[in-house]
């Protein structure tokens, strides 16, 4: 090999030892599998709360993990995996909701009644509860996007206001003020519809 070839080859490729590469890859795979085991249920619930469709929520979680898989070499640099993953799946979910304007499953009252806990409820009570939940969700959809997002994330008891702020990329005080506005708006919407009835 002449000198110019050696220079070009050295510039194009970073020499790494095969043993180090395979062990590093195995460690990354193991860490990634652990993330899937630990957080897939949480991410699914986050996705479902927005998409309200089981298949779409599962697809969104899968897409989020695929994104993580492409950047798995940066996993060691992440401080809080849970918030980081929720943020990824949240962005995936919002992208999907923007792109596909499919009707959420729970707009169908029968479908909502199917996923409701049915212990101790008669069929009539279940139907009434499903109608009420569908009405509340319709009111949530009427909220401005910023307030709606904070309200939806605040429903997750495992997420603090600091973590919600991290997921949305805003300050904690903004989270609180948006939540305040969202609750007031919801109270107004629900009270208005109640007075109409």
């Amino acid at each position, binding site marked *: 090999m002449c000198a*110019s*070839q050696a220079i*070009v*080859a050295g510039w*194009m*490729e970073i020499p790494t030892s095969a043993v180090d590469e395979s062990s590093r890859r195995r460690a990354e795979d193991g860490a990634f*599998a652990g993330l*899937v*085991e630990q957080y*897939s*249920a949480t991410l*699914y*619930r986050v996705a*479902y*709360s927005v998409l*309200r469709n*089981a298949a779409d929520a*599962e697809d969104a*979680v*899968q897409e989020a*993990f*695929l994104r993580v*898989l492409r950047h798995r070499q940066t996993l060691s640099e992440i401080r809080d995996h849970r918030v980081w993953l929720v943020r990824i799946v949240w962005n995936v979910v919002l992208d999907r909701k923007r792109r596909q304007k499919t009707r959420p499953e*729970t707009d169908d009252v029968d479908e909502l009644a199917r*996923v*409701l806990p049915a212990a101790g409820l008669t069929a009539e009570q279940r139907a009434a509860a499903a109608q*009420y*939940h569908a009405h*509340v*969700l319709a*009111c*949530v959809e009427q909220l401005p996007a910023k307030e709606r997002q904070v*309200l*939806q994330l*605040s*429903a*997750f*008891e495992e997420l*603090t*206001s*600091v973590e*919600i702020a991290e997921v949305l990329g805003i300050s*904690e005080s903004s*989270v*609180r003020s948006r*939540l*305040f506005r969202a*609750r*007031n708006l*919801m*109270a107004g919407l*629900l009270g208005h519809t109640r007075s109409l009835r």
Partner: protein
Amino acid sequence: MNPQNLHSSTSVPRSYAGEETLRFLARLPAPDGLADRLHAALREGELSAGEEPGRFGRFVARLNFQIESRIGALRLKFDPEKPWVRPLAAAAIVLVVVGGGWGVYAAGRMGQRPAAAAMPAHMPAASGGFSSAGAVRTPVTLSSPAAAQPESAQPNPVKKPAANGKPSAPAVPAKPSLSLVPVQ
């Protein structure tokens, strides 16, 4: 519980009646076997991503082939994962688009017509046609006496008003002297 949790905080306004619906959705259990399905799908996705390159990957592979076939001695390879390949490709695309646009613009400028079309100079037609062939049109008249031009075409001097204030008679223009000239 974390003191910063929204649900235990006192600074947040009390929750509305319908918030329980969102909490109910947030507490729904994940379907059974979700993690296993995800593992399988991700393994599949990883394999397919490794086997089938995307459009850019195929373009780079073709580019590699072209380069290898031409300057194979250098063993110069474009790796799509290298950070400088994508900006280079983007710059090349921009160059082609801008160059093409400039070419179209320049071609339009070269072939541009003047704003007003110049009328061709009047030329007598070679085969007669509708031109008058330089002939002076003269009216057909009988050979009769014609009025000759006056000898002096000087205007009549305007008379000054009389000093006694009486209006003078209006000036009558002098009749030109006529002479009979036969018209040829």
